[in-house]
């Protein structure tokens, strides 16, 4: 047996050498100049990098490091004959979808005690069984200490406009706090949510992590207001894409075939023309203008 482990990227230069940025709409590939052959078989070559920018801005997508490590770990497990759905982290899912936060900090307030995280989850199919959901927040090392702590600091996560406490985390009030990922379980929040847009609210508080009234509880005159989330390292003003908040949804789908995804791609890439096949048929019925973008049409090769 070999230890299947998540191999972290050895160097950013390796990333750059395989970095090619695609703009999906034009279907063109702007390739950065590649280094010499890395002497690796194509399979071992790092998957190409794309910028996973918040949807709606640009068509470019770079997979988050977390998704790349999931892909690497599970494909190594497959090569070793281990069923990836047995991994505890996969929650026995066979589909893991990542959504990038679209929210921005509301800087009108002097202190930021609440943050809204927004995710467009309309692509989640309600035919798939939801087996887990996590909100991954990257906490930067706070620049300056947040002032004399009035006890342990907690951050709590709620659905927006709700008092349903989804998850809470106690932050170390003493000593330097290293940067790192905080992972919150938001499965409850997604279960009761119409699968269009998911809104989650992060709040800071003193006192017990799971007491709902923490913030509402009448604060004694001596207790200062809860700390600013930016002083806890959750500010979102300047964030590289790899540090943006990520919603990771684990689902198990009975859908076995690739064609469903291809139909989706066809649907998103081109308006279905008159020749489009009947619902559920793949490729579109013969006689349509062409066999579809993924198959080279007879004779002249088609490039998307």
């Amino acid at each position: 047996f070999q230890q299947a482990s998540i191999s972290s990227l050895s160097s950013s230069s390796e990333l750059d050498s395989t970095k090619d940025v695609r703009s999906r709409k034009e279907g063109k590939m702007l390739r950065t100049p590649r280094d010499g052959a890395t002497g690796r078989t194509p399979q071992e070559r790092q998957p190409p990098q794309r910028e996973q920018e918040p949807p709606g801005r640009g068509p470019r997508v770079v997979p988050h490091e977390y998704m790349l490590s999931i892909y690497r770990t599970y494909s190594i497990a497959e090569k070793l004959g281990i069923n990836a759905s047995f991994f505890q982290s996969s929650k026995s899912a066979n589909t893991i979808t990542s959504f990038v936060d679209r929210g921005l900090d509301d800087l009108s307030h002097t202190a930021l005690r609440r943050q809204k995280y927004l995710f467009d989850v309309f692509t989640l199919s309600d035919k798939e069984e939801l087996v887990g959901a996590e909100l991954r927040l990257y906490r930067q090392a706070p620049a300056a200490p947040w002032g004399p702590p009035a006890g342990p600091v907690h951050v709590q996560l709620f659905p927006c406009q709700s008092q349903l406490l989804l998850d809470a985390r106690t932050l170390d009030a003493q000593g330097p706090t290293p940067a790192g990922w905080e992972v919150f379980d938001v499965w409850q929040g997604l279960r009761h949510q119409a699968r269009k847009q998911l809104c989650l609210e992060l709040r800071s508080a003193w006192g017990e992590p799971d007491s709902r009234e923490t913030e509402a509880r009448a604060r004694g005159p001596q207790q200062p207001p809860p700390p600013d989330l930016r002083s806890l390292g959750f500010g979102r003003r300047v964030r590289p894409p790899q540090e943006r908040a990520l919603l990771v949804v684990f689902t198990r789908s009975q859908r076995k075939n690739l064609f469903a995804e291809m139909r989706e791609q066809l649907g998103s890439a081109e308006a279905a023309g008159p020749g489009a096949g009947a619902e559920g048929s793949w490729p579109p019925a013969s006689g349509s203008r062409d066999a579809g973008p993924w198959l080279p049409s007879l004779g002249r090769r088609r490039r998307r």
Partner: protein
Amino acid sequence: TTFTSRHGKRHGKKSRLRCSKKPLHVNFKELGWDDWIIAPLEYEAYHCEGVCDFPLRSHLEPTNHAIIQTLMNSMDPGSTPPSCCVPTKLTPISILYIDAGNNVVYKQYEDMVVESCGCR
């Protein structure tokens, strides 16, 4: 007894390969799918090729039906075609792709690689 050719060799026919697994390299870029599939951009899928003729080897894991069909074909090729050389074990691969909402998705796709072939 079954019908056997007198010379033990097929007249003028090169001996046809028995049912077995052959390489099939899949290149998603060639398929034009590389604008939504992030990884892998290619993989080894294999395919099954060859004849299922009498006697069937045990590693081909024939069904009883295939055994009967092969026997009948060897006795009278006009009565029925030989049984088919098909995948008998398939394994999944992981694919990282971009969905219709520009989100990055990891999915395990079943039955993407042929592990073994047999007669059915």
